[in-house]
């Protein structure tokens, strides 16, 4: 059976094979589903290849970058050679700000002019507290920080006076803006209020005692070098984060984009709803013609075939998820303000969406579902205890996990590939030093980026559809009616 081949996860479960077999009489919807899932598997495979290649190139360029960096950092170890290097650096950036960069207690400025494509891509897909528009222009956003034992700090990113590269010029209540993200000075004795920074925050990678590599951020102020804490993350240290000295509840770039998208979509749908209500008995027109086919598509091809006769209860969620993800995917495609935020490519967002699907499917699951999950009828008890029940319970959590990972990985991968292609310009141009190289880079980069963007447009729709489709499938299996069947009774 072709469904089995394209769905190795379901291959483990006879139940799902039966599920697909049973539904296959709905020929068109079933065919469409299988075709789409096949297409998704193919695109995922292609993505992996693209990701591997871009990763290889990024790695190669990073190597190339560090080759160039070495003599530079070596030079910093010799005080006599430091001065001209610093001078050159300042001349390049055209910075003339008083005590800034005059001398940095953390040593020489490590943010070299050597372009690092990997760093660049990762920086651009990350969330940030301030939105960098162009040059030194920022859209400032509210900042809400909480440090246990220190209390709340509520301000805006303007208070940090961000200059180039999203680095703040001052520290406020012990917080600094590093590459657009807020970090906290670890030293509790650091004075509150505004303190001018002596140099841009810098970072270096150190190897911790347990052999892991970790990025350490430092900043110089009051002639002292202070270590910085990034904001707390709840990955339990698995992904290089962890609980630190403060929590960031700010309206970040991603939150701002989410709000903007939600408001835009709401406005759009209100218009459609109004014209649908006012157009009663007439032919649909305008935006109605764009939205209504999507609505009926979700209803007739996603909800009805997968959920069954109680589909109407779940329509609002499926539609909300579809349009929310689609809106965010599309707005993330715009390469300038107010777009460019990588929202659905941030795991926090996909975790929330997948959790909601998980809660809905789990809490609406009927007796039949739990029976088949925990104590599959018609299977020997030993097999149930040893294999089936553990696998089924694992599957309960694997389903939302694949859901969140699929969306996150697809969108992030797309952004990284696009950023890598754009980076070609800077790599060939040697970070702006070689005009001829830049032109070559542009010639190579523009068609590749254009192609990727077109592909991403498809992926934006596809991933929104897949998420909705699989949510409907999970809900459908949870509320499936007991049916007379001979395959495992």
């Amino acid at each position: 059976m072709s469904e089995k081949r394209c769905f190795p996860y379901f291959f483990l479960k006879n139940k799902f094979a039966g599920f697909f077999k049973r539904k296959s009489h709905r020929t068109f919807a079933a065919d469409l589903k299988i075709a789409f899932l096949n297409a998704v598997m193919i695109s995922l495979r292609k993505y992996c290849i693209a990701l591997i290649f871009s990763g290889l190139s990024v790695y190669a360029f990073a190597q190339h970058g560090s080759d160039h960096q070495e003599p530079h950092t070596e030079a910093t170890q010799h005080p006599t050679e430091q001065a001209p290097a610093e001078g050159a650096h300042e001349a390049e950036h055209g910075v003339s700000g008083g005590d800034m960069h005059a001398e940095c207690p953390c040593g020489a400025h490590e943010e070299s002019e050597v372009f690092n494509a990997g760093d660049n891509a990762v920086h651009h897909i990350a969330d940030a507290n301030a939105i960098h528009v162009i040059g030194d222009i920022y859209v400032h956003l509210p900042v809400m920080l909480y440090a246990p034992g220190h209390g709340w700090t509520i301000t805006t990113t303007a208070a940090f006076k961000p200059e180039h590269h999203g680095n703040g010029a001052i520290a406020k209540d012990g917080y600094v803006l590093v590459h657009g993200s807020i970090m906290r000075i670890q030293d509790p004795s650091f004075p509150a209020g505004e303190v001018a920074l002596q140099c841009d925050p810098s970072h270096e990678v150190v190897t911790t005692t347990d052999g892991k590599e970790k990025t350490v951020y430092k900043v110089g102020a009051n002639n002292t070098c202070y270590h910085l804490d990034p904001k707390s993350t709840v990955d339990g240290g698995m992904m290089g984060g962890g609980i630190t000295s403060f929590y960031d509840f700010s309206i970040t770039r991603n939150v701002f984009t989410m709000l903007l998208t939600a408001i835009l979509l709401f406005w759009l749908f209100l218009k459609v709803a109004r014209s649908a209500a006012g157009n009663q008995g007439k032919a649909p027109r305008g935006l109605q013609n764009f939205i209504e086919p999507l609505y009926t598509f979700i209803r007739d091809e996603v909800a009805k075939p997968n959920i069954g006769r109680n589909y109407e209860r779940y329509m609002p969620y499926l539609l909300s998820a579809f349009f929310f993800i689609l809106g965010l995917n599309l707005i993330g495609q715009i390469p300038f303000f107010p777009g460019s935020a990588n929202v659905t490519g941030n795991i926090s967002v996909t975790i929330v969406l997948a959790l909601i699907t998980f809660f809905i499917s789990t809490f609406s699951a009927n007796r039949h579902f739990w029976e088949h999950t925990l104590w599959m009828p018609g299977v020997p008890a030993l097999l149930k205890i040893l294999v089936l029940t553990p696998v089924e319970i694992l599957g309960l959590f694997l389903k939302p996990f694949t859901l969140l990972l699929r969306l996150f990985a697809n969108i992030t991968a797309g952004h990284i590939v696009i950023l890598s292609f754009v980076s070609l310009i800077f790599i060939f141009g040697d970070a702006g030093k070689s005009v001829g190289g830049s032109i070559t880079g542009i010639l190579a980069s523009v068609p590749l980026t254009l192609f990727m963007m077109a592909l991403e447009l498809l992926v934006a729709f596809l991933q929104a559809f897949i998420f909705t489709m699989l949510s409907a499938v999970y809900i459908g299996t949870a509320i499936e009616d007991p049916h007379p069947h001979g395959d495992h009774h």
Partner: protein
Amino acid sequence: MLFLADFSVIRPEPGLLIWTTIIFLLFWFLMSRFAFKPIGAALKQREQDIQDALDLAQKARQEVSNLQAENEKLLAQAREERSAILKEAKEAKDEIIAEAKERANAEYKRKVESAMQDIENQKMAALVDLKNKAGQMAIEIAEKVLQRELGNKADQEQFAQSLVNQIKLN
């Protein structure tokens, strides 16, 4: 591994988690209340309308075809009736003609018969008359003969002859 260490999008952040939850739940609530409900209702209504219109058209078509069948039937019936009437008329005509013929024949026969009767009567009357006349004449002749003396036989015969010649039968 420089960039993986800084790969922040893979780290769940409490702030973003909370904001996403709030925004998405609000979005879900507002959209289902103010957008999906009216749009869904309008779509359902329209589908119903279209279905109704189709049903109506189907019904109308059915009716028209029914009507047509009825018309056909009526027409056939009328045609049948017409031919029946024609047949009847023809029959009636034939009957009338036959009757008329019969009657004419009878009349003719009757007329001929009565004419014959008349002729017979006339003939009888004429015969009676003739008899009477002949008698009278005989008497007259006899009278005349008696009045004249019959001299000779030749005169007598001549005279008789002249008398006979005088008799003009009509």
